């Protein structure tokens, strides 16, 4: 039963509205049986993050193939983009109209659905040791594990790397830097040769957060960092945060062409600068590799190389960690088609479809073991996935690992660091206040 407590004095004021908003409505549903034999009939609704080109046809094709196998099953596909899916998901959640299958990031984003009883426990069918579970890399499954239970179907893996133009690096005599200081030094060489060293567009705020999160992982001890993500245990007083923010501001001022103006530049503009051979480097996700070096771009001709954002030589944190996490799909715990939804996701992650997802034009490295191979994936994607698999830890994105209030404070702080309006100490103080308030 959902909580609904009001003092009598306010009952009249809010009574009418609450009657319509649904407070005191349906009680929590019985746990769905995800391991039941599916009935191959009815309509499956799916909320994907594959809206727009080139990803949109992926789920459309899957749905068409599945309907061919099971003619009584139809689909309602709601396909959103990376930006719009956040609003869509929350609107559907608030109006209690979540589809049978829906997209999720790892971390706090998924935890909200799990804690709210909106995500079915998939452990009986996907936990390591089950037939389906054993087809996935274990770290991908672990990313969506909570209180010993497995909740999501990991669809693809991801990680953040510095992409560089091989030809430009060769031309100016550079090799991928091994330390943060070497990275800063290489920027001067690229500048002298007339190139923008690192293309950076922070209009949306999150590109800056990606740098910060990787630098936090390097400069803040892992256990401290994990504790600080949760407002209940956070202290946010480790000096590594200040070091990381200072490194970030150094990188912005020494390595980017837009410098303090970067908050006015779109991340796609920066991506384009690398694609056109105007800049030497651009910090990007594995999911972007194939579109940045797409057919016909200068980068495709010059060659895209990748390296992990280098850590300072004396960094006290986990210098082997890589920022990034798998993205997956939850099954609605209140769905009447839960068993059918599970069956469809098994179909979506079979070897053939996993290989299709990993190959161009999609270029989304499947979380299914062996799906990313030389036959279907580009060199940088294979190299990126290998490095993610070898990393000591995967660090979840800063804007989804912690609670929204703290993430929002980091986002504003990152923008302030870029424009130079606030010092690292002031930013940390504002984040600490947000974390205190979120307890």
């Amino acid at each position, binding site marked *: 039963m*959902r*909580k*609904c*407590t*009001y*003092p009598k004095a*306010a009952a009249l*004021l*809010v*009574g*009418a*509205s*609450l009657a*319509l*908003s*649904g*407070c005191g*409505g349906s009680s929590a549903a019985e746990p769905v049986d995800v391991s039941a034999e599916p009935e191959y009939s009815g309509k499956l609704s799916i909320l994907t993050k594959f809206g727009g080109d080139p990803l949109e046809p992926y789920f459309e094709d899957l749905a068409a193939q599945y309907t061919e196998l099971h003619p009584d099953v139809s689909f309602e596909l709601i396909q959103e983009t990376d930006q719009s899916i*956040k*609003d869509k998901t*929350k*609107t559907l*959640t*608030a109006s*209690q109209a979540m589809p049978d299958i829906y997209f999720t990031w790892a971390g706090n984003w998924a935890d*909200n*659905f799990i*804690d*709210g*009883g*909106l995500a079915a426990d998939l452990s009986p069918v996907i936990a390591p040791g089950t037939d389906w579970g054993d087809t996935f890399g274990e770290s991908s499954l672990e990313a969506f594990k909570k209180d010993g239970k497995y909740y999501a179907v990991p669809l693809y893996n991801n990680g953040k790397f510095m992409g560089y133009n091989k030809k430009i690096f060769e031309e100016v005599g550079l090799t991928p830097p091994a330390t943060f200081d070497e990275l800063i030094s290489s920027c001067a060489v690229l500048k002298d040769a007339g190139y923008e060293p690192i293309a950076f567009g*922070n*209009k*949306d*705020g999150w590109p800056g957060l990606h740098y910060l999160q990787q630098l936090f992982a390097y400069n803040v001890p892992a256990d401290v960092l994990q504790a600080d993500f949760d407002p209940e245990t956070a202290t946010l007083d480790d000096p590594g945060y200040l070091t990381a923010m200072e490194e970030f501001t150094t990188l912005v001022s020494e390595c980017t*062409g*837009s410098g*303090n*103006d*970067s*908050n*006015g*530049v*779109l991340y796609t*503009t920066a991506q384009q600068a690398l694609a056109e051979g105007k800049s030497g480097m651009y910090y990007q996700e594995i999911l972007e590799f194939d579109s940045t070096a797409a057919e016909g771009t200068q980068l495709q001709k010059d060659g895209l190389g990748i390296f992990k954002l280098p850590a300072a030589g004396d960094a006290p944190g986990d210098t082997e960690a890589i920022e990034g996490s798998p993205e997956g799909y939850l099954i609605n715990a209140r769905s009447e088609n839960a068993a059918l939804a599970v069956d469809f996701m098994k179909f979506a992650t079979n070897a053939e479809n996993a290989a299709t997802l990993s190959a161009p034009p999609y270029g989304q490295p499947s979380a299914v073991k062996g799906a990313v191979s030389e036959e279907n994936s580009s060199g940088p994607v294979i190299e990126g996935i290998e490095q993610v698999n070898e990393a000591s830890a995967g660090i979840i994105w800063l804007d989804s690992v912690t609670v*929204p*209030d703290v993430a*929002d404070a980091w*986002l*504003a*702080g990152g*923008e*302030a660091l*870029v*424009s130079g*309006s*606030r010092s690292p100490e002031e930013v940390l103080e504002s984040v600490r206040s947000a974390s205190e308030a979120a307890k």
Partner: protein
Amino acid sequence: MTVANSARAAAVPVAGAGVRNLPSPPARAGRKDARGWRNLIWVLPAIGLLAAFVYLPLVQNLGFSVLEWDIYSGGQTFVGAENYARMFEDPIFWKSVVNNLWYAGISIVFQVFGALVLAALIEGLRSDRWRRTLRAVYFIPSAVSLTVAGLLFYFIYEPQMGILNAALDGAGIGQFTQAWLGQENTAIFGIIAMSQWQGFGYCTLLFAVALQRIPTELYEAAAIDGVGPFRRFFSISLPLVREMSSLMMIVTVSGAFQVFNEVMVMTGGGPNNSSQVLGTWLYRSGFVKNDFGYASAIATAIFVITLSLAVLQLWYSRRRRVEW
């Protein structure tokens, strides 16, 4: 003659109408009641729609604003005025109010006074063809959707490829180039400037229509008396378009407190929340921070502010109504 006088004149019984044919007072009252009920039936659908889509959501919003609402579990807990107390202590809420006030103030200057002056200049032209052409030229930006205009200006302001910085460089004043939307002290003004460009022509057109309704005899008489164009503008045009000016003030100020699209498209409220307005802070509180109770409190604040300003302006303009 005023509208009120003509209404009174119409109500006077026509001479010679037979008193004998008039129904008795109770019958007349009953017929009037029946007609009243029939009239009510005709307006009921509109009242129903207004109630369902305007007044009910308002009441609902008021209800949500005193709750802490977890959209994931569906749990709603009454927290009284806590969301309002937080709102008054929230520096970004006040930053948003200040930005909305900037929006309103600058919009009044450009979209009310500026548009009126421009309309007077256009209507003062002798050539009808030029008048029509200029009205169309100024109106065209209003036909562009705010989202499209926002994107267009985003690229005009873009620090590396935008034509504004290129123009400043070309004019030899490159020291003024900057990331107009990427700097905290210029972002909101960049958005407001775009909004003036977009809304200016629409206001000009409405003022042009209002000016056309003023009898030309008044201007001719003033001209014969030797009154110059400035005095004619301030003594004839300005008082006689007062109702349109009041309407434009209400529309402009209310619009300034409801602004959302252009800010979302151009800056999303950033950098560092410097260009947040009440609409975007409401959105961010609800859809990003999952704090729907607090977002409802902000929505209530927007409603109270816009309603108060509209009532104040209506009261003021009615006191000073000029009729001819």
